[in-house]
Each structure stands twice: as C-alpha cells, then as structure tokens.
C-alpha cells in the first residue's frame, strides 16, 4: 500500500510540474494572436502528455525533474519566440490601425472645417453688426476689430488644417480663436443681437445668477455663460492632441518619409 501511495504521490507531483509548465506557456503566449497562442499551448500539452506517458511506460521516476529542466532551459527561447510573434502581429495589425487613423483624422478635419467656418462667418457677421450699430452703442466701437481678427485667424487656421504637418497647430489656433471670440461675443452681445442676449439672460436668471444671488447660483450662471465657448475650445484642444499623435505614429511607421495620415 505504501509503494502504491508513493507512486500515486509521485504521479501527482509530475502532473503538477506539467501544469506549471502549461501555466508558464499561458503566461508567455498572453496577448499573442489566438491561433498562434493556441497552437503553442496545444503542442506543448501534447509534448508533456507524451513525455509523461513514455516515462510511465519505461518506469522512469525522474520525469518531473526532466520536464522542469526542459522548461527552464527553454525559457529564454520561449521569450524570444514571443517577442518575434508580437512583432509579426503588430506589423500585420499596422495597416488596419493606420487605415482607422486615416478615417478618424478625416472625420476630425471635416468637423474642424465646419466649426471653423462657423466661427469665421460669425466673426464677419459680428464685425459687420458692431460697425453698423456703433453709433448707438459706445462699447461697440471697440468690438469690430476683435471679431474681424478672430475671423482672419480662423481662416488662417483652416488653411493650416489642409496640410498634414500643420493640422495640430491649426486646431490649436482654432481653440485660441474660439476662446477669444466667445469672450468678445459675451461682452458685445447686447450690441450684436438683442434676441440672443434676451434668451441668454433668461437662461442665466433661471440658473440663479441674477435671481437669487448666492455663491452656487452665481457659479451656475457663470458656467452657463462660459460653457459653449469653453466646449468648442476644448474640442479643438483635444483634436490638436489627436492630430499630433497620428502625426507621430505616421513618422514612427515610415521614418524619414512624409506623413501617411492624409
């Protein structure tokens, strides 16, 4: 009975070693393509089974040690194989990634052009209206040039958006332009549009800025007033960061070559 128990314990010990080798295999195949990882795991599982069966048939009691030795001596080759397979997988995934990046870049450029055109048009209209109403409102005398400047800068930024290398700077310029024009829009709103001014005032009153002047109501009111401009500016900042990232990726893929994210 003792001999049978010892044999049972020894086999369990060998099975545990084989399981640890398979666990090591699962570790170094993680993140690899499913088919590649499954092939290596299945092949190793077969090898371990065959070695255990062969040792059992020959009465070899040192098979656990032999399996551990094979796993340890091959660990460096396992990691080297993993590095190579990861390289192959990332290279094969690169065209898909680049294609997705190109599509996303195109969508962002279109969005920038739509918003930028809107800002430039608003700047021109605002400059025109402040010029028309300057005889009625003293404050309007100083608002024409900021809106005109904003419109010119927005146009310049859109020209930069047309060039892949200038997109990040173009979007950053549009962010500054959005913040600049919104500040002047708020200060000149009564001059520019009585209707919009009226509705904005109602929103602010509803939020408590003018109704009950407490700290929280004031904060909500200020937030409501600043939010539209801040959102547009934040959008352009995020887009500028995204353009910069895709530009770096294109350079990394084709060092020395022009950007491929066009």
């Amino acid at each position: 009975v003792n001999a049978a128990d010892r044999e049972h314990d020894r086999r369990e010990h060998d099975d545990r070693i084989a399981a640890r080798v398979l666990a090591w295999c699962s570790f170094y195949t993680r993140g690899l393509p499913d088919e590649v990882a499954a092939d290596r795991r299945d092949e190793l599982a077969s090898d371990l089974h065959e070695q255990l069966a062969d040792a059992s048939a020959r009465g070899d009691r040192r098979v656990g040690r032999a399996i551990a030795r094979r796993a340890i001596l091959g660990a460096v080759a396992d990691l080297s194989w993993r590095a190579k397979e990861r390289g192959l997988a990332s290279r094969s995934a690169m065209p898909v990634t680049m294609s997705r990046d190109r599509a996303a870049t195109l969508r962002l450029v279109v969005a920038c052009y739509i918003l930028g055109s809107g800002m430039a048009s608003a700047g021109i209209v605002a400059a025109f209206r402040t010029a028309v109403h300057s005889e009625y409102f003293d404050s309007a005398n100083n608002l024409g040039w900021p809106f005109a400047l904003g419109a010119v800068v927005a146009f310049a930024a859109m020209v930069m958006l047309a060039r892949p290398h200038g997109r990040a700077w173009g979007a950053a310029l549009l962010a500054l332009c959005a913040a600049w024009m919104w500040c002047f829009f708020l200060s000149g709103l009564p001059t520019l549009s009585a209707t919009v001014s009226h509705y904005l005032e109602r929103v602010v009153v509803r939020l408590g800025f003018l109704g009950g002047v407490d700290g929280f109501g004031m904060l909500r009111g200020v937030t409501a007033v600043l939010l539209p401009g801040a959102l547009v500016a934040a959008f352009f900042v995020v887009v500028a960061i995204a353009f910069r990232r895709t530009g770096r990726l294109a350079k990394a893929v084709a060092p020395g070559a022009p950007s491929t994210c066009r």
Partner: protein
Amino acid sequence: LPIERRILESGLDIQAGEQHFYGFSLARQMAEQDDRGGLTAHGTLYKALGRMTETGLLEAEWEHPEIAEAEGRPRRRLYRVTGEGARALHRARQAEGTQAVTPGLALA
C-alpha cells in the same frame, strides 16, 4: 551541431519508418542520437520547428482530433521534412565533406 541539422537528421530517421514525426518523438530521437541523455528544451525545440516550417524545411499539420480522441491523448502536430529540407541537409553534409547518405535522404 546546429539544432536545425539535428532536427533534419532525426526527422528523416523517423520518417524512414513512419510518415511523420511530432515534437516529443523528435526530441527523444535527437537525445538518442546525441547520446547525451537529456531532451531538447521545449522553447528551443518548438522555436526551431516553427522557424524551419516557415522557411519550408519542414511541413506541419495538426493530427485529426478523432485519432487523438480514440487514443485518449492530446492531438499531435505532425511534421515532415520536405524535399528542400533534405536538400539543405545534403548540402550541409557536402560542405563538411561527409559522403554518407542516409535512407531518409533517399526518401525525400
């Protein structure tokens, strides 16, 4: 000897009697030929087998699962030395001035 050459030699020896060989049978044959006792490490063996399959020295296919199930074991990945592999071994031997021709080379 480089592991590629040992794999080709042992693989052709197994192929002389059987149609295919698999990882453990190859490791055992290599150990017997080397007379050093120890089996080739897992990582070293399967990395080399993968590399040789990619370069066309070996061809590989998975055994039908029904066969493995019938024998109550995991399925094996079956390898075979290709004609290109046999020629590569022949050239390596010629380069060393070895004139011996194995039965496996005649089969390939």
